């Protein structure tokens, strides 16, 4: 007995040459184009002013002191701790000097440096969005409604929406893929191909790019109250329980080397 009857659709082989292949090629080429466009559009990150740099480096310094305090003797650790406490209390580390503490947070939009960063982001977004919508329009205009290929494996009906966008036939087997769906599949699935053509950190895949941008947006600098952060770090420094890495090092060494 034969199994469930397999749907047979006779497709014009020209569909393959004139739709499937062009969409794939165009998608790959747009990816390449987008990569070079992002390379061209990325502006080099602007240098931070010295005061801001100082503030951040001192913060990093305090954190290093906490993490690596065992490396130095207790006496010098205490000296550093006292100095940091004094500086934080006076606000000596702050970028705007001691006077700037407690002042209202600056509006990130009013800062020209910040604006520049946002402009860069916008440019990137545009470089992503324009080709994407153009190609989608192109496919919709010319190729909508075609069934262009058949997947070699069966799928559950849940995939129908994903694979047969633009084809309004209810009884069609899920294995048939419409042109619009092929577009989406290539949109999401070409990353390995780009990696092969352009090297691993390319800017071709807009999905990865958008993800990055969202992350970058979340950690916009300059919005936090640095004074509060320093106070918190000072508390961390103050609770550090100091131990010394040289304590008993000679016994350790002798034990290990069998002395």
């Amino acid at each position, binding site marked *: 007995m034969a199994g469930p009857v397999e749907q047979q659709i006779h497709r014009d082989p020209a569909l393959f040459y004139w739709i499937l292949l062009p969409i794939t090629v165009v998608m790959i080429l747009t990816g390449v184009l987008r990569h070079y466009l992002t390379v061209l559009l990325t502006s080099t990150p602007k*240098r*931070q*002013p*010295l005061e801001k*740099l*100082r503030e951040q*480096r*001192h913060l*990093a*310094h305090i954190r*290093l*002191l906490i*993490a*690596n*305090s*065992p*490396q*130095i*003797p*207790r*006496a*010098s650790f*205490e000296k550093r701790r006292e100095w940091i406490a004094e500086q934080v209390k006076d606000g000596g580390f702050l970028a705007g000097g001691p006077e700037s503490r407690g002042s209202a947070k600056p509006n990130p939009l009013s800062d020209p440096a910040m604006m520049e960063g946002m402009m860069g982001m916008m440019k990137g977004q545009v470089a992503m969005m324009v080709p994407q919508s153009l190609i989608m329009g192109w496919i919709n205009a010319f190729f909508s409604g075609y069934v262009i290929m058949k997947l070699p494996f069966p799928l559950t009906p849940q995939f129908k929406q994903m694979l047969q966008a633009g084809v309004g036939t209810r009884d069609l087997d899920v294995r048939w893929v419409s042109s619009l769906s092929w577009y989406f599949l290539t949109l999401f699935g070409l990353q390995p191909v780009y990696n092969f053509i352009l090297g691993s950190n390319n800017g071709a895949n807009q999905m990865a790019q958008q993800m990055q941008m969202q992350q970058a947006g979340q950690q916009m600098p300059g919005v936090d109250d640095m004074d509060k952060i320093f106070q918190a770090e000072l508390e961390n420094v103050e609770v550090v329980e*100091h131990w*010394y*890495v*040289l*304590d008993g*090092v*000679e*016994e*350790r*060494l*002798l034990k*290990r*080397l069998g*002395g």
Partner: protein
Amino acid sequence: MSDPLLEAPTQTNPSHTLALSQKARPYLDSRPWYFTTLPYPLSLFLAPESQERWAASQNLFLASLIADDLPVAYAYLEDITERFGKLNERVMALQGLYQEASAKDTKALEDVVKNYDELLKTDPTLMAIRKRRVAVLKGVGRIADAVGDLVLMLDASPTDAEAWAELADCYVSQGAYEQAVWCLEEVLLVMPNAWNMHARLAEVQYIQSQKMSEGSGEQLKTLSESMRRFCRSIELCDDYLRGYYGLKITTARLLAILEKVKKPPTASSDLVAGDLAPPKVATVYKLNELATAKLAEIVRRSSAEEKGWDGYSGAELKAAKAMIEKDTQKIER
């Protein structure tokens, strides 16, 4: 084995530097014509663009500067400048380096410093230029100015281990050991596992202890601290010649002092400061023996050119050998 072109020429490795500088000219001549004739974005279409190529260019540039082959160095500098632009921070530093190397006398060097000053006036965040300035000042012997510059730099960027180490060096040259120790501690805060920095700190502490009054508690403290630092550096890096050498010297000194001091304070002298108690005589003695044995092993195996025992610096090996020989002579007598 990595490409030798990608290894930076350093002062501690003159043979590598020499080899690099000899490669510099043929490498320069082997470049295809389109490297130089086309402007930057167009040359990308023909020439493969890779980080390795530019890293190699920089190393060859530095090597030919050290070898005093200025024309070749200039060709590399032009290459790099063309690719990365005059305003790139690294390119600026490399250009400064070239000017320093081509300066004929102290006056020309002063001009270079002035040039740096002007660059820094327009953009005070150029750390590479600041470092160059410090290096020149140190080179012409204006240590006080160099220290001032370094302090300014470290106030702005206290996590810069390189600058801290440089400052420590300046202080040591001026005999300000306490300050030098502080700076080296800062280096260790940034790089806690740098065994060579541990050893360096121990060396400075040893020199410091030599200047203290004989047999005082302070000297004992500094010396044991120094010995422990050497222990730590060996703990971090097996068969570290410098560490063992230092360990041998410090333990020998400690033994001499501990013998003299009738009743060594067993407990920690100052509980508030949290100092460690001086080590037991037996432990120091064992460590001394260990260091001697290890040094002898390293010298023996390394001079026999055993596999895995190469790579020690020749001068250090010789010093270790001399010390062992002196030691055995003493016993014979």
